[in-house]
Every structure is written in structure tokens, then in C-alpha cells.
């Protein structure tokens, strides 16, 4: 039997604190399907956290045989990318792992890069599928998923991160709990130099772009910072958040925190109203998960129309105020 597949499992934050986060559970589902292709290789997990033992045991339902837990406060007290990467690399060596897989999150990508660099192994980021063999064949995302790359990964330890939301969580009730093993890695002081030293809570009151059910989007066609008042009026009537394309933030019309796209936020609202947005792929990758898209654009041939479910052909400066007025009229 082959050595184990080792998965980095992140713990959630806020309401999800103390349990594995969703992208990590997706990564375990992917690892379980890979294990079947490796003749039933075990799936083992690394968790870092002073209270991670409960979360580790619960991973049995996600196919994990052993959850290795680092609880040492020097490492587990605050996120430290180099130390976590070193721990992952050391554990992979100790267990004879054939692959190390992390969630394609900020932390997952960072820790896997540290581990791969230490092991002198290649790393494939944002993988969608993999076929084991002498060298592994992988399909991974480029351009934030607008383009796919078929590639080979040739190393004794294959390092990859899993593209978020590419596979479903595979939880099987009635599975035995995972064995929980304490792991005490040898961490050099230099690897603890960089660690989280402070937190700032999210600003209260505003509607979060990533949680909003309705997003009113503005692009180049809005034309100026001042003209966003028309979109704000509609957003307020709908209880919507404002999202914008990259040209809007590059022009300084709106803050970067409102950017939707490859270099901004990924959103998945019930309705996205795209006003004066042509639909460059940079923007599309951020909004294509919306359930419905209504495009308001003067150009019936713009790329956004290929993605839109509904469209109004016209100048947003006439259409948007007219829609706001109609909503008010019907509300009486």
C-alpha cells in the first residue's frame, strides 16, 4: 500500500471556530477520491490549534484515518506561515506521504508554498482534478479559472492546493472517528518570526459584498464617482451591496474593497445587476456564480450578454433612475 495522502485542514473562524472549514472539507473529499485511485491509501490530516483535537476526531466522517494535531502554544497560538509549512513538511517526511494537499485559501496556498519550498518539490495551485501515476496528471486553474492547464507533477511528494468549491463535501455518517495523534514538530525560531500579531474586526453596519443577496454592479459606463449616486439609490431600495469592475477602482471612483473580479471579491448573490459593465474576464470570474444576472448596457453585443439572463439595452443613467422611480411608485 502507498504512503498516506496528507491534507492540511484549516479551522473555521467566527461561528465555525473549532471545526474544519468548508474548503478544507472539500479538499478531504478530493483526497478521498484520490486515495481510491491509489489502492486505498490512507488520508491523514494536519491541524494546528490548541483545541483542535475535537475537530480532528470528527474528520473520520470525511475519510480521515488519523488527525495529527499540533497544540504547542508557540506554534498553535497564532498563525505563522513558515512554522506551519515546516510542520507540514516534517510530518510528510515522517509519515512517508505520497502527496500533500491544502485548501486553495490564502493560508492554504501560503503554507503549501512553504512546505513545497522546504521539500524542494513542485507545487500545483488550484487543482481541479488529478490522476495518480508515475508522474501525476493534474488539471489546474489559470486566470482565476478562465483558463485550464493540463500539467504533470513529477516528484516523490506531490504538493497541490485544491481550487475552492470544485468538489462537494463528502461526509458519511456512521464512519469511525479519526485517531487523534499529537505532533510536536521541531520548529526553528526563525520560522516563528512571522506570525499574526493582531486582529481588526470587520467594520459594522455595511452590507458585506460576499454575503449580499443582491449586488448592484457598476463599470466604466457609470462614468464618474459622482454618478454612482444613481446606483446607490437603487441599492438602498433593494437592500443591495455595491460591486464594481476593476476600471472603477483603478480610476479611484470607488474603494478597492468593492471590486468584484480576479483581483477583487468573488460573489454569489441571488441577483447581480450589472450596470455599464462590458464583461471583461477579469470581472466575469468574480460574478459568474450569481444565480441571475441582469445587464443594463448600451451595447447589446458586449461580452456580459453571453452570461446575462436578463438585459435592458440602454443608457444606465436613464434606466437605473427609472427603475428606482418605478419601485417607489409601486411601494406607494
Amino acid at each position, binding site marked *: 500500500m502507498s504512503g498516506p495522502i496528507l491534507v492540511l485542514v484549516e479551522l473555521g473562524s467566527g461561528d465555525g471556530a473549532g471545526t474544519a472549514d468548508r474548503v478544507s472539507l472539500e479538499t478531504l473529499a478530493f483526497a478521498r477520491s484520490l486515495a481510491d485511485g491509489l489502492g486505498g491509501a490512507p488520508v491523514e490530516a494536519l491541524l494546528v490549534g490548541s483545541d483542535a483535537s475535537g475537530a480532528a476526531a470528527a474528520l473520520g466522517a470525511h475519510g480521515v484515518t488519523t488527525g495529527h494535531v499540533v497544540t504547542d502554544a508557540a506554534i498553535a497560538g497564532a498563525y505563522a506561515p513558515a512554522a506551519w509549512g515546516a510542520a507540514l513538511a516534517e510530518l510528510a517526511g515522517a509519515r512517508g506521504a505520497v502527496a500533500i494537499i491544502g485548501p486553495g485559501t490564502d493560508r492554504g496556498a501560503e503554507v503549501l508554498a512553504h512546505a513545497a519550498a522546504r521539500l524542494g518539490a513542485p507545487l500545483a495551485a488550484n487543482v481541479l482534478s488529478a490522476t495518480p501515476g508515475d508522474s501525476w496528471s493534474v488539471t489546474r486553474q489559470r486566470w482565476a479559472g478562465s483558463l485550464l492547464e493540463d500539467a504533470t507533477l513529477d516528484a516523490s511528494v506531490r504538493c497541490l492546493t485544491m481550487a475552492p468549491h470544485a468538489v462537494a463535501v463528502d461526509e458519511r455518517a456512521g464512519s469511525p472517528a479519526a485517531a487523534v495523534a499529537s505532533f510536536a514538530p521541531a520548529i526553528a525560531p526563525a520560522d516563528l518570526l512571522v506570525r499574526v500579531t493582531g486582529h481588526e474586526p470587520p467594520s459594522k453596519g455595511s452590507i458585506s459584498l460576499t454575503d449580499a443577496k443582491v449586488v448592484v454592479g457598476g463599470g466604466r459606463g457609470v462614468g464618474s464617482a459622482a454618478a454612482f449616486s444613481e446606483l446607490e439609490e437603487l441599492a438602498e431600495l433593494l437592500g443591495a451591496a455595491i460591486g464594481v469592475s476593476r476600471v472603477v*477602482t483603478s480610476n479611484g471612483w470607488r474603494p478597492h474593497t468593492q471590486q468584484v473580479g480576479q483581483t477583487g471579491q468573488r460573489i454569489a448573490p441571488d441577483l447581480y445587476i450589472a450596470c455599464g459593465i462590458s464583461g471583461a474576464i477579469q470581472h466575469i470570474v468574480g460574478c459568474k456564480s450569481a444565480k441571475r444576472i441582469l445587464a443594463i448596457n448600451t451595447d447589446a453585443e458586449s461580452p456580459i450578454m453571453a452570461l446575462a439572463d436578463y438585459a435592458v439595452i440602454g443608457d444606465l443613467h436613464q434606466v437605473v433612475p427609472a427603475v428606482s422611480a418605478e419601485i417607489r411608485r409601486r411601494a406607494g
Partner: protein
Amino acid sequence: MRVLVCVKRVPQTGGRIVLTADGQAIDTKFLGFTISPHEECGVEEAVRIIEAQGGESVVLTLGAAAAEEQLRDAMALGVDRAVLLETDGSEWDPVSTAAVIADTIRAQEAAGGPFDLVIFGNESADSGGFQVGIRVAVALGRPVVNGLKGLTLGSGSITARREAAGGGWETYELPTPAIVGVKEGLNLPRYPSVPGRLRAKKKEVERITIGASGSGPAAVSGAPTGPMKSMLRLPQEAESQVEILGRGAEAAPAVVDLLQKIGVVAR
């Protein structure tokens, strides 16, 4: 203060990606090129730091001879000089890229003194490997953190902030010399001025040829390389059938009918 910023030349893709017939690259016949977006903010940050503190900023790229265009763009914004690691234009994997950049940083520092800060983009827009800056930091034994949208330089240290997974921000302290991976939103890059563009034409680009023509990255790095690309493909996207609700302001009642139908506006 000495700051190095590493950038990558990438195509401006616009509305849709078209691949070459052999599936090995994006067809760039009709496309312009740009500095990868996160790195544009890295260039701006390097210029601001040197404006405030004095010293020297340097921009570095690995790529074809044509990547000089992006080095000139960076110098037009105020970067002092440039280093071009010139390849034959073939694609370089992250392991080999990082190995060559680490060697170049060692050589540049031996000649001109240490860099207090080396700035990378969090990930390149095109290949999205999420690793070159970290590999360079591990090779050089320097502290590194990725994903930054805020940087404050102190004396001998850097305070950095990035968005936390559950909302809000987390902060890091790094001793210098350090390496950082930055994201767009770190700052709002300036537009180049005409005098800036003229000055950039006269600034120095140091050219270093990497590898013999056609030798490729594997001959350079010595380390296991990869992932090795075999083919690019466009994902299958279901094209939606768009329903035109109307034209101009007269479409407003049809739009509100839809908003009521899907429950966004109360009936």
C-alpha cells in the same frame, strides 16, 4: 533604503481568451501587455517608499526581450533602474523562476548592498502559481508574508496587514530585510506622467541572458521543476439565453416586474 520589486509581463485579455492552435499559449496577436495587477501596486509601493525615505528602487522581471516594455512602465512611475532576466520566451515554471530570482538577488546585493524589502505580487494573473515569492524567501532565509493590502515601514521592521478569512484584518510584524507578497488594493497606482515616460527611456536596463537558447528552465535550476504544462484548455461554460426586457427607461416596469417575481422587491 533599497527596495526591489519583481513583476511579470502578462497579456491584457479583455472579453475572452483565444488560444493558439497548438494549445500551448494564449494567442496574443491582437492583445496588449501589462504588468500583472497585484505587481502594479508593488511598483507603486516601491516608488512611494523611496520617495519618502530616499534610496534606490529596482524593478526585476524574468521573461522575453519584449518584457522591457513593462520595466520601462515601472521606471516611468519612478523606479530608478531595471534588471531583465532575458529568456527565449518559453514559459518558466515556478521552481526554476524562483531559483534564478534568488541567485539574481544575491548577485545584486553583492554588487550594490542588501535590499531592505523585496516585493512580489501575491500571484501572477496568468499562471497563478501562488509560490515564487515564498520560494525565494526560503532560499534566502528571509521572513515573508503573502496577501498584503497594507504596509508600514518602521525602523528595522515592517507592519503589514491582510484580510482575514472570516472578515476584518490580521496584522503581522516582520524584521527587515524581508520579502512580501502584495495584492491589488494595497494602494492606488498613479498614472505615468509624460516627463516620467521620457525619463524612463534614459534609465538603465541591465540585461542578463538566462540559459542558452532553447535550453529551458530545467537546465538552470537543478531542482525538480514543475508543474510542467502539457496543454491549455478553455473551460466549458453553459451560455445562457438572455431575455431582453426592453430598451431605455421604458423598460423600468418590466425590470420591476422581474424584481417582484424573484422576490427582490415586495409585491
